[in-house]
């Protein structure tokens, strides 16, 4: 069995006639679907063996949805131990089904999968991880015993046993259905789906009851059956009325528990983040309280990091020009401890030419932070025709022409770099401060040409 090649996991297919068992089995075994179906029907004619097999698979094999969901839920386990803990022994088997473990064709392997993550319903009996299998086995053994006893000539009151068995079976199916519905709620299924689950439950119950009644009333007339049906519906209604408060309470408890778990998860995440960042920084600040420069730098870096975390936008893809400029500003802030304020208007995806712009801007920011003193203002504007960056400081200023030729900073890293990439740089300095203006026009060709142009440069 272990040498079998990797097969698709045995799950009930969505392409179903009754419950998707045949399609799932065919998919798993690699046989044509209609062959499996015909085989099942033939087996069903052979003393009902097919029916029993079908029912068994129906009960034991999860649907593909459930299977996928269960696998997807696995990673969340450390945060929500109450969900995943009971699944732990079975988990190793089912997570491996997709990639590693060769999946045995025997349906018995699907058993633990199904029971494992059932949730708290089963986890209340942690000593009995295979409770359902044992129950089922006991039931089958009982049935077999009865059959054998009948063969041996012992008189078994089948007239009473069959209705009892039918009712028990119906109840079991209803309960399983209920459990499934509940789990569907737990893993954020849509409301419509839940309603569908309840409808199925109701329909199943009605069918079971009707069947039982017809069976019990035997050869009775239609009139009698109708009367009995009416009476049973009335009884069912009464039972529902009695059980409704209990059911509602159960549901509400479940909702509360779920909300609580979500809150706890969020709280844990926030606490973890604050511990890793803010608390560490506060501790550092207390130790460095004497050094004003360090304190400002730490506070500034922490503020930036916290802001990024608080206002992060999950949908926003990285790799934009404004992100690049902000990252460069953060680097300069960390290196020199001067505040660098970035204001950006418009944005675009970063190409290699923009990389040159960011590098030049970074060099300008470094100069501004080093010589300017005070806050450095960076303004990025991305228009249709060009991207512009302005870096302004309030330092004493300098004469760009008097910069010695051996000072590469301004001449090479800023002006030269911009010129090489088809842009322009200007430095305006006065005693009130210095502003570096960088402009990188978008070439007339569309973005593709931009890209190749940028690649050709280095």
């Amino acid at each position, binding site marked *: 069995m272990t040498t079998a090649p990797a097969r698709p996991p045995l799950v009930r297919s969505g392409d179903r006639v009754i419950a998707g068992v045949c399609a799932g089995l065919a998919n798993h075994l690699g046989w044509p679907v209609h062959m499996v179906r015909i085989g099942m029907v033939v087996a069903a004619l052979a003393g009902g063996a097919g029916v029993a097999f079908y029912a068994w698979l129906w009960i034991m094999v999860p649907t593909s949805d459930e299977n996928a969901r269960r696998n997807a839920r696995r990673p969340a386990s450390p945060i929500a131990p109450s969900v995943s803990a009971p699944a732990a022994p079975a988990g190793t088997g089912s997570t491996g089904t997709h990639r590693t473990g060769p999946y045995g064709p025997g349906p018995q392997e699907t058993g633990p999968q199904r029971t494992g993550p059932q949730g708290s319903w089963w986890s209340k009996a942690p000593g009995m991880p295979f409770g359902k299998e044992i129950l089922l086995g006991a039931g089958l053994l009982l049935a077999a015993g009865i059959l054998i006893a009948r063969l041996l000539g012992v008189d078994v009151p089948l007239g009473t046993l069959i209705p009892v068995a039918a009712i028990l079976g119906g109840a079991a199916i209803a309960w399983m259905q209920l459990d499934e519905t509940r789990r569907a709620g737990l893993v954020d299924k849509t409301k419509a789906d839940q309603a569908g689950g309840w409808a199925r439950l109701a329909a199943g119950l009605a069918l079971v009851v009707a069947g039982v009644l017809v069976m019990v009333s035997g050869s009775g007339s239609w009139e009698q059956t109708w009367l009995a049906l009416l009476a049973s519906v009335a009884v069912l209604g009464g039972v529902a009325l009695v059980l409704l408060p209990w059911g509602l309470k159960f549901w509400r408890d479940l909702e509360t528990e779920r909300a609580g778990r979500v809150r706890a998860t969020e709280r844990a995440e926030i606490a973890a983040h604050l511990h890793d960042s803010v608390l560490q920084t506060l501790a550092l600040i207390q130790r460095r309280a004497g050094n004003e420069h360090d304190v400002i730098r730490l506070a500034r870096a922490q503020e930036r990091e916290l802001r990024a975390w608080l206002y992060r936008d999950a949908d926003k893809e990285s790799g934009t020009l404004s992100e690049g400029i902000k990252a460069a500003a953060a680097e300069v802030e960390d290196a020199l401890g001067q505040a660098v304020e970035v204001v950006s*208007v418009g944005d675009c995806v970063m190409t290699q030419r923009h990389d040159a712009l960011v590098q030049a801007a970074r060099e300008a920011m470094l100069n501004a932070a080093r010589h300017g003193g005070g806050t450095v203002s960076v303004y990025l504007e991305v228009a249709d025709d060009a991207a512009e960056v*302005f870096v302004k400081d309030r330092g004493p200023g300098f004469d760009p022409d008097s910069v010695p030729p051996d000072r590469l900073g301004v001449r090479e890293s800023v002006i030269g770099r911009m010129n090489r990439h088809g842009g322009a740089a200007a430095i305006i300095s006065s005693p009130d401060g210095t502003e570096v203006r960088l402009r990188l026009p978008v070439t007339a060709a569309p973005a593709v040409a931009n890209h190749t142009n940028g690649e050709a440069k280095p």
Partner: protein
Amino acid sequence: MTSPAPETPAAASTAGSPAPTRVVIVDDHAIFRSGLKADLDADIVVAGEAGTVEEAVAVIAAQRPDVVLLDVHLPGGRGGGGREVLAGSAPLLGTTRFLALSVSDAAEDVVSVIRAGARGYVTKTISGVEISAAVRRVAGGDAVFSPRLAGFVLDAFGTAPADIADDELDKLSARELEVMRLIARGYSYKEVAKELFISIKTVETHVSAVLRKLQLSSRHELTRWAAERRLL
């Protein structure tokens, strides 16, 4: 929590120098309030303080200050924060000016509080000198635009100038755009005036016009833009 300053406006104006600017500080952090009080210049008198929406509305109505330094995120009321204070003090908006203060740089906070009637927006990291200058500017009826706010305006209104020179609310004129750009680049009003060869008064006029457009523009995109732009 309210602590009206001992001197009345009449008593203060007898000091001989021009009447001091009376401000009310609205912030739920007492530490920040006292720090701000210490930072403000001597000619700015703190007439009252408040820590919640209800307190703020009451203190502002009682004190009728020149300027209210208003924290955007404030407990109390119906959860609307600074905007609720502005709404509650609507009858005073003609005489009392509001300057919004916040640690948040989020566009929706900035734009919503400006549209509720604030005449400026500064972040709490602002220095004492700068906040004093901003208070005086707001008291004089002008608007205070930080580089970040100017950036938001440019982003929201677009960087293309209005075609016609009429009083269109949804677009900025070419001159207003120039002023906004320079402010976004970190220029002071004085530097903007020098750069554009216009007077500081003209710069202030342009900035006030932009503020008016920001407050009155019915551009539905503006609110949506602010809500969508959840980044810094």
